[in-house]
C-alpha cells in the first residue's frame, strides 16, 4: 500500500549550529540539547530523569558535563547548545566524570540491593550506568531508608518505593503525556515517594507505560512480576491486534508462552507508548483454545482429523456454491481477510460477504467503497499533530483509538483548541485534548455538520469560523465507525470534506477492519477498492487469481443486516464464519437466527463461542502470536508483524481456507508471503469508484422518551481481554451518564441506581451526572453488567426509557 504524506504544510529546514563534544565537531539543529548531541556521536551520558519525549527537569543530576566557560558542571539534559559551544562529557573531562560518579554514589546509598529479586535486573539502566560510573565498594554505613513494599498504585501496577530514584518520569508521563495526574510525588526529602491519593488508584489507560520507562525496578506490573529474566526471553517485533491505532510492540516469550508485551518505539505511529489493553491483554490467546477440528455428528460436535474436517467442510460449502455467505469478522489480519475475500469469490462464487460485526449500514458500505477502500494514507499521525484543526465526528479517541488520543493531546498542549468534537457527551478525554465540544444528540450529528457548512452558530461556537478553519491547509476530519449509526452522517461528512478541502480519515475500532476493507472482504468490493461491478476490475482480479473472469459474480451481493435477515429466513445455503460474537451485532438474536437457520455452517475460530456451538464444522485457527501477518492502521499504513510462537502448528484462517480450496481442486495461496505477493501484484485502483452516498441529514423527530448514546469503552467485556484480571480491575466502572436536568426530570436520586429499558429488556446500574445533551442517556456498549445490544435490544440512537432503579 502506498503512503503519501500530503499534509499541505511545508517542513521548515532547521537552522544548524556547530558545537564540539569531547573535542569532536558536529553540526546540530538549533535548540538541540547537549545530551542529544552527544548521543549523535555515540556518547551515552548517564541519565535517569531525562526522556526525549518528556520536558527536561534536570533533577537526577546524573548527566553533569563540563561546559566551556561555566564554572560549575551543567546538566546535559537541560543544556541548550549555542553556536560554538564546547562541552566535555565524562569521556574527556575529569570534572564531569567525578561529578557523575558522585551522583551515582548518592543514587546507590538508599537503593536496596534487590537486584536478585527485582524484575528490572538485566535490563536496568541503574545497573548499567552503575557499571559505567559507579564505584565498586560502598562507603555508606548508615541505615537505608525503607518503605513497606510493594504497594499497589493500581490493580495492575506495583510500586517498591525504596527502589525509586525520584526521576519523576512516571509522574511526568502521567501528567504530560496521558493527561492523568493521578500518580504524583508525595512527601519531601529522602522520604519523597511516588504515590496516589487514598482510594484513587492510578487507573489510567496508559499506566503501563510508566513501568516501561521507569529506569529502575520501582514500578512493576502485577502480571509480569517475578515471571522472568529478560535474557530468557525471545523478543519479536509485532503489531497490536486490539485496535486500529497500529502500535509497534515487542512481544517477549519464553518456552512457548508469551510473558509480556512492551511498546516498541515508532516515532511515526505510537512514539514510545501504547495503551494498557495492548500491553496487558494477551492472555486470551492461551484461554480455552480449540485444539482439534470438530464436526457435528448426530447433533453433537466431536473431534475429527484435519483431513476429515476439511473434506466435510469442502463438500458442504461446494454444495452451497454461490448461495453461500461469508461473515469474516473485524479481527483478521489483512492476509487472512484477503483469504476470505478470495475464497468467497473464486471458490464459492458468492459476493455475500461482510467483515463488520457491529452496527453498520448500506450508506457506510457505499461511503467506504467510494472514499476509503484502497486509498493511499494521506492523513497520518503526523498530520494530526500538525493540523490547525481536527474535527472529531462520532469518535471518542481515548476509548476507541488511544494512540490518536495521545497524539491529539500532544498537539493540543502546544495549540489548545486544535480539537473540536461533535458528541452527545462532554468527556474527560475531550478536556484532556483541550477540545471544543459541539453538543449533538445521537442522530443530530449530520445536522451539525450541515450547520458548519452553512455557517450558523451552535452553543456559542461560531460555525462559520469552524468552516473557515476547516478550509486551512492541513485541516483534518476524523470520522469514527459509529457514524454508521446515524443515517445521513457519513454523507454529510463527505460533503463537508469536499466543501472545505479538509483531509478525511475513517477510524474503525477493530484492528482488522481497514485491512479487511482493502482486501475486499465486503460485498461489492474486490481487493484494493475495486468495484465488483466494474468489468475491468473483475478481469484484473481474475487474472491475478488464475481463474476465468466469467466465474466471478457480476452483481454486488448482500452485506450487513440484509445478509443476516436473508440467512435467518434460511435463504443462505451455507455460512463461512470467522471470529465474530452475536453480542456485537445490533440485533444479537437476528445474528443467532442467521446462524441457526442456515443449513451448513463452517466456523473458523480460536476458542469455543456461541457460533462454534451451532456450527457443523469447527476449524481451529491461529491467534496473532502464532502467525505472521499485517494490520493496516486507520491511516491505511501497513504494519507487518512476525510470528512469535513457533512451536505450535496452528494454521492461519487463510491457511485453513487454502486447504479447503485445495480439497475442491482450486489451489490458492495460504502462506503469508504468497498472499502478500498476490495482493501486492494487484496494486492500487485508479479507476472509477462507487459514488459517494448522498443521504440527507435526517430531521430529528421529537421523542417522548430518551435517546440512547453509547460506545465501547477501551476496557470492557471484549473477548480479547479475557484472562487478565489485573487489567480488568482498572476498567472504568459501568455507569450510565445523564445530564442533571434529565436525571431530575426522571426523578433519579443522586448516588442511586437507574433502570434503562429497551424493547427487549433493561439494565439497572449506577448513574453519574455529566455535561451532556438533555434527554439522552449514555451507556457503555459492552461492559460488565451492561450489554446494550443483548440486554436492551436497542441500537445506538434508538429510544429507551429511564426510571429510578432503587438505592445503590
Amino acid at each position: 500500500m502506498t503512503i503519501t504524506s500530503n499534509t499541505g504544510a511545508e517542513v521548515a529546514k532547521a537552522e544548524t549550529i556547530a558545537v564540539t563534544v569531547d573535542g569532536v565537531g558536529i553540526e546540530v539543529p538549533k535548540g538541540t540539547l547537549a545530551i542529544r548531541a552527544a548521543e549523535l556521536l555515540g556518547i551515552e551520558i548517564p541519565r535517569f530523569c531525562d526522556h526525549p519525549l518528556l520536558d527536561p527537569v534536570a533533577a537526577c543530576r546524573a548527566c553533569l558535563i563540563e561546559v566551556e566557560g561555566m564554572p560549575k558542571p551543567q546538566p546535559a539534559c537541560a543544556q541548550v547548545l549555542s553556536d560554538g559551544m564546547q562541552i566535555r562529557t565524562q569521556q574527556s573531562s575529569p570534572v564531569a566524570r567525578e561529578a557523575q560518579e558522585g551522583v551515582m554514589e548518592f543514587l546507590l546509598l538508599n537503593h536496596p540491593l534487590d537486584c536478585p529479586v527485582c524484575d528490572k535486573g538485566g535490563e536496568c539502566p541503574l545497573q548499567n550506568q552503575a557499571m559505567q560510573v559507579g564505584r565498586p565498594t560502598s562507603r555508606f554505613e548508615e541505615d537505608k531508608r525503607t518503605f513497606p513494599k510493594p504497594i499497589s498504585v493500581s490493580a495492575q501496577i506495583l510500586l517498591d518505593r525504596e527502589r525509586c530514584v525520584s526521576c519523576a518520569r512516571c509522574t511526568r508521563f502521567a501528567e504530560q503525556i496521558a493527561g492523568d495526574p493521578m500518580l504524583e510525588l508525595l512527601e519531601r526529602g529522602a522520604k519523597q515517594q511516588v504515590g496516589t491519593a487514598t482510594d484513587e488508584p492510578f487507573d489510567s489507560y496508559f499506566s503501563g507505560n510508566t513501568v516501561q520507562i521507569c529506569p529502575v525496578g520501582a514500578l512493576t506490573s502485577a502480571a509480569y512480576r517475578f515471571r522472568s529474566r529478560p535474557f530468557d526471553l525471545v523478543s519479536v517485533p509485532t503489531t497490536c491486534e486490539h485496535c486500529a491505532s497500529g502500535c509497534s510492540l515487542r512481544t517477549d516469550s519464553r518456552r512457548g508462552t508469551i510473558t509480556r508485551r512492551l511498546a516498541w518505539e515508532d516515532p511515526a505511529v505510537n512514539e514510545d507508548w501504547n495503551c494498557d489493553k495492548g500491553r496487558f491483554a494477551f492472555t486470551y490467546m492461551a484461554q480455552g483454545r480449540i485444539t482439534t477440528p470438530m464436526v457435528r455428528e448426530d447433533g453433537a460436535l466431536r473431534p475429527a482429523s484435519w483431513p476429515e474436517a476439511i473434506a466435510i467442510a469442502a463438500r458442504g460449502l461446494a454444495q452451497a456454491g454461490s448461495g453461500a455467505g461469508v461473515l469474516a469478522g473485524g479481527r483478521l489480519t489483512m492476509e487472512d481477510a484477503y483469504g476470505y475475500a478470495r475464497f468467497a469469490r473464486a471458490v464459492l462464487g458468492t459476493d455475500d460477504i461482510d467483515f463488520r460485526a457491529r452496527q453498520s449500514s448500506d450508506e457506510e458500505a457505499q461511503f467506504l467503497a467510494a472514499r476509503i477502500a484502497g486509498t493511499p494514507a494521506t492523513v497520518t499521525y503526523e498530520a494530526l499533530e500538525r493540523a490547525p484543526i481536527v474535527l472529531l465526528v462520532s469518535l471518542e479517541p481515548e476509548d476507541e483509538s488511544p494512540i490518536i488520543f495521545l497524539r491529539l493531546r500532544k498537539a493540543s498542549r502546544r495549540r489548545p483548541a486544535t480539537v473540536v468534537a461533535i458528541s452527545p457527551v462532554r468527556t474527560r478525554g475531550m478536556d484532556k485534548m483541550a477540545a471544543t465540544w459541539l453538543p449533538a444528540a445521537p442522530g443530530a450529528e449530520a445536522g451539525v455538520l450541515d450547520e458548519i457548512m452553512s455557517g450558523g452558530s451552535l452553543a456559542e461556537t461560531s460555525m462559520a469560523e469552524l468552516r473557515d478553519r476547516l478550509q486551512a491547509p492541513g485541516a483534518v476530519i476524523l470520522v469514527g465507525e459509529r457514524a454508521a449509526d446515524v443515517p445521513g452522517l457519513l454523507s454529510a461528512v463527505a460533503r463537508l470534506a469536499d466543501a472545505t478541502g479538509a483531509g478525511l480519515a475513517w477510524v474503525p475500532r477493530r484492528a482488522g477492519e481497514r485491512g479487511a476493507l482493502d482486501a475486499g472482504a465486503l460485498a461489492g468490493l474486490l481487493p484494493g477498492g475495486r468495484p465488483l461491478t466494474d468489468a475491468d476490475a473483475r478481469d484484473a482480479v481474475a487474472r491475478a487469481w488464475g481463474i476465468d473472469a466469467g466465474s466471478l459474480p457480476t452483481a454486488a451481493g448482500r452485506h450487513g443486516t440484509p445478509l443476516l435477515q436473508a440467512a435467518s429466513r434460511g435463504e443462505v445455503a451455507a455460512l463461512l464464519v470467522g471470529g465474530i460474537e452475536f453480542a456485537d451485532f445490533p440485533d444479537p438474536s437476528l445474528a443467532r437466527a442467521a446462524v441457526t437457520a442456515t443449513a451448513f455452517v463452517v466456523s473458523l475460530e480460536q476458542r469455543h463461542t456461541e457460533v462454534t456451538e451451532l456450527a457443523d464444522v469447527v476449524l481451529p485457527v491461529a491467534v496473532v502470536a502464532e502467525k505472521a501477518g499485517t494490520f493496516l492502521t486507520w491511516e491505511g499504513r501497513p504494519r507487518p508483524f512476525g510470528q512469535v510462537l513457533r512451536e505450535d502448528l496452528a494454521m492461519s484462517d487463510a491457511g485453513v481456507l487454502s486447504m479447503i480450496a485445495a480439497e475442491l481442486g482450486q489451489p490458492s495461496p495460504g502462506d503469508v508471503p504468497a498472499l502478500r505477493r498476490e495482493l501486492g501484484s494487484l496494486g492500487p485502483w485508479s479507476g472509477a469508484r462507487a459514488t459517494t452516498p448522498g443521504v440527507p441529514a435526517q430531521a430529528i423527530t421529537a421523542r417522548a422518551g430518551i435517546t440512547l448514546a453509547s460506545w465501547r469503552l477501551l476496557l470492557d467485556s471484549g473477548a480479547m481481554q479475557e484472562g487478565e484480571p489485573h487489567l480488568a480491575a482498572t476498567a472504568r466502572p459501568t455507569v450510565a451518564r445523564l445530564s442533571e436536568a434529565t436525571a431530575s426530570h426522571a426523578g433519579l436520586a443522586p448516588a442511586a441506581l437507574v433502570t434503562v429499558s429497551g424493547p427487549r429488556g433493561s439494565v439497572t446500574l449506577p448513574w453519574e451526572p455529566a455535561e451532556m445533551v438533555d434527554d439522552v442517556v449514555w451507556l457503555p456498549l459492552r461492559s460488565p453488567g451492561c450489554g446494550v445490544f443483548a440486554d436492551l435490544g436497542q441500537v445506538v440512537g434508538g429510544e429507551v426509557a429511564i426510571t429510578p432503579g432503587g438505592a445503590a
Partner: protein
Amino acid sequence: MPLTPVITEHWDAPDLYTIDGYRRFGGYRALQAALQQDPDAIIGTVKDSGLRGRGGAGFPTGMKWGFVPQNDGKAHYLVVNADESEPGACKDIPIMMANPHALVEGVIITSYAIRASHAFIYIRGEVPNAVRKVANAVRQAREAGLIGSNILGSGFDLEVVVHAGAGAYICGEETALLDSLEGYRGQPRLKPPFPAVAGLYASPTVINNVETIANIPYIIDRGVDWFRQFGTEKSPGFKVFAVSGHVNRPGIYEAPLGITMAELLDCAGGMRDGRPVKFWLPGGSSVPMLTAEHLDLPLTYEDMAAAGTMLGTGTPMLFDDTVSVVKAVTRWLEFYKHESCGKCTPCREGTYWITGMLERFEHGTGEPEMLETITSACLQIGGRSFCALGDAAATPYPAAMKFFRDEFIAATSTPVDETFDPVASYVFAGAAAR
C-alpha cells in the same frame, strides 16, 4: 560606627503598625511622590541607589527590576519573599510585625515601577502573627485608596494578596516559592527561563525580600544621595542586623553596612559572662562560619566574600566556648535534611547520609575515615545540586573543619555532651535550667 535606625526608627511607637501611626512619621509620602514620576525613573533611582537584595544573595535590586521586559502586553507580578526560615535569620518577621506599612508602601511603589498588576506577599505559615499584621496593613491601605483601582488618581491599579505558606524552608528559594504560590509542591524550577521573563504563571515577575522592599519608601522619600551616605561603594545602605546567640543583649540593631561584628557585639552588650566568641556566622546557617580573629572585618558583601564567607541575611549568630561545634553543625544538617525538597539526588541523598554520619560523631561513635567521607560528600553536593539549598547544606561542615578539626577527631571517641555540657550553653540559669 554609629547605629542608624531607619526602618526601626519608630518601633517604640505603639501604633506604628497602623496606617495612622505610620503616616504620622511621614509614611506614604514616598508613594505620593513615586506616583508622580515615570515608572522607569523609579527603576533608575533604585539602580542608582545601589541597593542590593537583602534576602541573602545581594543581587542589585534595580538591575533585577530592569530585567522585566516592559511594554510586552503581559501581566507583570511582584512577589515578596517573606518566607524567612533560614536558621539564624530573624529580621523580616520583626519588620513585618513592627512596621508592616513600610513593606506595604514598598510593595505599591515597586509594583508601580515594574508595572505589576498584582502583588503577592508570601509569608511563612508558621508565623501567623506576621501574616495578620501584614494583612491588617494591606486592608488599611486599601481602605485609604492606596491599593485597588486608580490609586491616588494615578491610573495605576494594583491588587495585593497576602498568602500564608505551610512549612517548607525551600519555599524561600525564589523559583520554589513561585511553584508553591501556583499551588504545587515547592520545588525549584529550571532557569532559564528566569522569573523576570517567565515567573509566576509564566509571566514576568520580580521576587524581592521583605527588607529589600522595606528600603524602597525611604530611598524614594529621602533620595539616592542620602542612601549612599550609608555603607560602602559596593554595599551601600543600612542593614537590619539581628544579633543572636550568647550575647548579653540579643536583638535588632540597625546600622550601616560596613560596621564590624566587634562594633555590633559591643552594642549588644558583649558576650555573656565575658566568655570568648568561639565561632560566629555573619548571616544564617548557609554561610561559612568565622572565628574571633574575624570580628573586626566590616560586615559588607565584599568583605565577607573576601574572608571566604558571605554576608547572607546579615543576621549574625555568635556562640561562646560552651558550645560544641560538632553538635551545632549536626543540628544544622538535620535541618537541611528535613527541609530538602527531594527533587535532586545530591541534596536528597547527600543530606541524609551526611546527617547520619555526623550524628555518630555527636554520640562519640564517629569513625575517623568518615571525616574524609563527609568532606567528599560535601564536595559532591556543592555546585552539583539543583539549587542553593544543596550548596548551603554542604557549607557548615567544611567551614567547621577548617577551624575545629580537633573537635571532630575528639568526637570519634567521646560523645560531645561529655566534653561540652549542654546545660552550660543554656541561656537560662539555675533552677530553670533543670
